[in-house]
């Protein structure tokens, strides 16, 4: 049974119309458990927003992501990116703002999200943040993305890292993969939202 009011479908086929459920839709979530990687399949939303929550490494390592245009067979999309960071340590004697040396110039390897440094692996240390990808399905434009990551550096720093850039391809992005540069994702959650 459906309900149509003044020409607008309110619900049909067992579901409320997507136009009434808000602009931000939880598409998928994944919880790590000693996982080598976490991967998501992208679809037709105009914007994808990922929240990564207390992603904890098995060993001290850099948190990173890569993209695929062939349904996850290969994560090797060409990327040009820029990155900067701001930091302060618990000892109170080292602080700053600087360009981070984890940018890419047409690189196909993973893009580091945790500046050029490793996320600490102490029990209370982790990595949090959000990544936005625009128009991933476009076959006309390069694919812009922006990320803000806050993490506990292995040497007890609070570090906030900004990464932005574009996947330099006119092929549609089909998948995204999150990993640590070495070791597993011991714990944590990554949520994928769609926005139209």
């Amino acid at each position, binding site marked *: 049974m459906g309900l149509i009011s003044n020409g607008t479908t309110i619900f049909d086929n067992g579901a*409320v119309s997507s136009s009434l459920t808000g602009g931000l839709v939880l598409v998928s979530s994944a919880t790590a458990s000693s996982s080598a990687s976490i991967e998501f399949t992208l679809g037709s939303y105009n914007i994808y927003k990922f929240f990564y929550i207390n992603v904890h490494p098995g060993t001290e390592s850099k948190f990173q992501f890569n993209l695929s245009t062939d349904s996850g067979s290969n994560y090797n999309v060409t990327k040009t990116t820029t990155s900067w960071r701001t930091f302060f340590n618990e000892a109170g004697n080292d602080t700053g703002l600087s360009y981070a040396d984890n940018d890419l110039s047409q690189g196909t390897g993973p893009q580091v999200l945790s500046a050029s440094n490793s996320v600490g692996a102490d029990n209370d240390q982790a990595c949090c943040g959000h990544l936005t990808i625009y128009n991933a399905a476009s076959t006309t434009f390069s694919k812009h993305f922006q990320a803000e990551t806050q993490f506990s550096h292995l040497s007890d720093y609070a570090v906030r890292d900004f990464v932005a850039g574009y996947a330099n391809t006119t092929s549609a992005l089909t998948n995204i993969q999150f990993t640590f540069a070495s070791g597993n994702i011991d714990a944590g959650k990554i949520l994928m939202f769609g926005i139209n």
Partner: protein
Amino acid sequence: MAVISNGTTLIDNGALDAAVSTGALTLISTSTASSSSSVSITSGISSSYDTYIFEFTNIHPATNNVNFLFNMSTDSGSNYNVSKVTTAMYSYNAEGGTGFELGHNNGLTLSNGTGNQTLLGSLGSDADQSVSGYLVMYEPSSTTMVKHFQFRLNYHNQADYTQEYWVSGYGNTTSAVNAVTFSMSSGNIDSGTIKLYGVAN
């Protein structure tokens, strides 16, 4: 009366069924300042959501040239004194085109300080001056991890600058954070709203 569509219950007993998707961003509370010495949010921060977003709209100080402050509590607001490790970056440009800068403000950083975190300085109190922006807080109810947070606030500096501050860091505690407070370094928060949203898990 219940509404059942294609075998799926959508509405029953005066409420949408829990399985019905209502969007991924849930408004938990709206706090409106009105000559308030502080705005404290002492409910709604719990294990219900992993991620919380606070949206600040036109937070207007009663007193000119003040700092906007933040702290957290692990005892439902009895004490706002969570140890914090933070970093603070800013960018500004003057209305008159006389100055611009990108920098890090060492004076705002905390290394396990328990006092208020200054989020920005020199906020103007002219009728059209205020601060707006957001805070993202991650898993405040965790009893394992430190509590990461990210602010991004744009404001009208009393010297007629647009200025943005990115303050971020972590509450260096494994106790659950369950309340936050916002205030000015001097005088009241004259007006403005703070909306608290939970992001679907």
